[in-house]
């Protein structure tokens, strides 16, 4: 079945009233999930999984997939509005998106995020259609050594996320990595740094940590000043991005798509890595990098596109190989298996209607999401006009319920508060939360890759240079460090001269 007839039949399936409805339900719930703190797409999907038992495999998959990429849209909303990442891949959006909101430009930020997400998502679907199988071959070329080097490279990139000092960013990365070791070590079964606290046995929760570090610390910062200081500029300029915004965003969007899709294929943190590599690249090639971190629209357009492209990319290993690259895909795979379909290269041959039906539904779903989210921008912007003295307790409650609702565990709320205090103190000393958070997320993957590589090579570090992909990534990382080191050195030298 060639691609066009396949796609056509896919649309026929998706546009059937039943499937169309489920697609809508999926993306709608997904958006809500992305906006609401705590409950993530995995949680929602597993709650809704039983309801799919009575449905056909296509309908179930359409709905569940809708929840997944819908959540990517919703996640950026809270990042922009209140500096709380709804999804790990939206953490980077907080950096500039929230600043834009404070400048009264929440509308354009939300708008460009929505459009970028649509473009990234749609492109990745197209790529998925044509390239699912060949690309999945690439996915398996990445073994432990390659992962280690890739993540090292990504962490070097993430130093660019910092607005300030180079050294401070490095410290944040190391601390983030250290924090990620808290919890039970899966290799030896020994708990590390838990000090008897049962909640920590699975590590520090990502949601409480992120909400604390970003959301609560932001609230505390805002409380410092006297109350008449306006947090969000009252005069909201436009609701949608203007021509100037578009001109600046086109580049990042294109780059984000091209970057995001391949990175999303990689098991592990694909979409997250995509978002912050995009940010770092945009900052690097921008004509005024100092604008980043203070409301540069490129810092929203690039990452948001990249993370949706990455979400599409993560379907590649599942559909092409039958390997789920992350927890969400594992759930989708489970759903398929329960319906008697084994995802993999054979699925396209044996059950073409599922493959094409899902792909077509992604087009439909992404469009629905755009149509859903755009009008909502007006509503969100109005929300920001609410005086901060009313908004603040709501934000706090939001965070608290979000942390608690994960596991009905009050300790997670306490963890969140502690991270909030930490985040506040860090900011006073001009350390940044973003590199720490990203290192924290990637830490476990990084450490596992490192250990596996060393076991395979029997302690020989040259394995990282012997394998081509790994070597390339490390060389690139080294190159970046050296060139930035030069820049930094030259800057300090000139500072001295000026004085």
């Amino acid at each position, binding site marked *: 079945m060639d691609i066009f007839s396949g796609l056509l039949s896919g649309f026929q399936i998706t546009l059937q009233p039943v499937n169309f409805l489920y697609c809508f339900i999926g993306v709608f719930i997904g958006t809500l999930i992305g906006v609401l703190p705590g409950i993530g797409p995995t949680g929602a999907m597993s709650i809704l999984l039983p309801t799919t038992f009575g449905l056909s495999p296509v309908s179930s998959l359409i709905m569940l997939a809708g929840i997944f990429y819908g959540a990517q849209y919703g996640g950026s909303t809270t990042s922009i509005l209140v500096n709380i990442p709804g999804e790990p891949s939206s953490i980077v959006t907080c950096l500039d998106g929230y600043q834009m909101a404070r400048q009264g430009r929440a509308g354009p930020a939300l708008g460009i995020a929505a459009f970028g997400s649509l473009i990234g998502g749609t492109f990745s679907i197209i790529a998925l259609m044509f390239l699912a199988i060949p690309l999945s071959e690439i996915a398996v070329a990445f073994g432990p050594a390659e992962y280690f080097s890739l993540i090292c490279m990504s962490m070097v990139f993430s130093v660019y996320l910092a607005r300030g000092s180079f050294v401070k960013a490095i410290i944040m990365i190391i601390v983030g990595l*250290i924090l990620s070791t808290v919890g039970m070590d899966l290799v*030896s079964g020994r708990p590390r740094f838990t000090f008897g606290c049962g909640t920590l046995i699975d590590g520090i929760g990502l949601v409480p940590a992120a909400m604390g570090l970003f959301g609560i610390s932001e609230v505390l910062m805002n409380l*410092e000043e006297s109350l008449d200081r306006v947090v969000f500029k009252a005069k909201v300029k436009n609701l949608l991005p203007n021509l100037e915004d578009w001109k600046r965003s086109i580049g990042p969007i294109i780059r984000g798509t091209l970057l995001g899709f391949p990175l999303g294929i990689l098991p592990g943190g694909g979409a997250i890595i995509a978002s912050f590599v995009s940010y770092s690249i945009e900052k690097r090639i921008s004509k005024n990098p100092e604008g980043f971190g203070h409301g540069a629209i490129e810092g929203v357009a690039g990452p948001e596109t990249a993370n949706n492209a990455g979400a599409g990319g993560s379907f590649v290993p599942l559909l092409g190989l039958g390997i789920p690259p992350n927890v969400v895909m594992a759930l989708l795979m489970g759903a398929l298996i329960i319906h008697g379909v084994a995802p993999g290269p054979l699925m396209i041959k044996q059950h073409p209607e599922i493959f094409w039906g899902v792909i077509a539904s992604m087009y439909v779903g992404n469009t629905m999401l755009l149509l859903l989210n755009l009008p909502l921008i007006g509503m969100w912007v109005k929300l920001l006009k609410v005086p901060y003295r009313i908004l603040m307790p709501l934000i706090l409650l939001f965070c608290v319920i979000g942390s608690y609702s994960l596991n009905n565990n009050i300790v997670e*709320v306490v963890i969140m508060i502690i991270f909030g205090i930490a985040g506040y103190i860090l900011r006073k000393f001009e350390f940044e939360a973003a590199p720490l958070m990203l290192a924290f997320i990637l830490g476990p993957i990084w450490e596992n890759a490192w250990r596996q590589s060393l076991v395979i090579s029997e302690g020989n570090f040259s394995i990282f240079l012997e394998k081509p992909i790994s070597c390339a990534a490390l060389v690139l990382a080294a190159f970046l460090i050296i060139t930035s080191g030069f820049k930094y050195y030259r800057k300090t030298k000139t500072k001295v001269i000026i*004085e």
Partner: protein
Amino acid sequence: MKKYHIIPTLFWMGLSLFVMIFSYRLGLRGFHNPGPGLAPFVLGLLLLLISLYVLIDALLKKGRGDETPGEGQSRTNYGKIGLVLAALFAYSFLLERLGFLITTWIFLFLLFRSMGNRWVTTLVASTSTMLATYLVFTFFGVRFPPGIFGLGG
């Protein structure tokens, strides 16, 4: 200015030593078979080295005072921050004892009021928010503690 750099650096050094000690205890086992403590130990070591570098650099830069915190000396409202933190901790302790509805209502009431809202606004906002969040989250299957009064379980 110097203090500004030295205080966090000392903290990082302390943290790195702490990490190194505990990870050593976990067992390092060597590079051919990394033990649970190896990665944290190496990370702790890196942190220690970098903090040392920063410390020495800051000590050597005597009087070069070019790196000020940059914040204006406005009157920082630490009292408010303290109150909010106290409210947050109190909420955590009381949630499972008093139940969701009561604890949330008190929490909201205190916060709204402390932000300077009028009595009426505070009451309306607290009540409506409490109800709204309860209904929305329960709809999504989240379960809240009923507490000893059995409200809102």
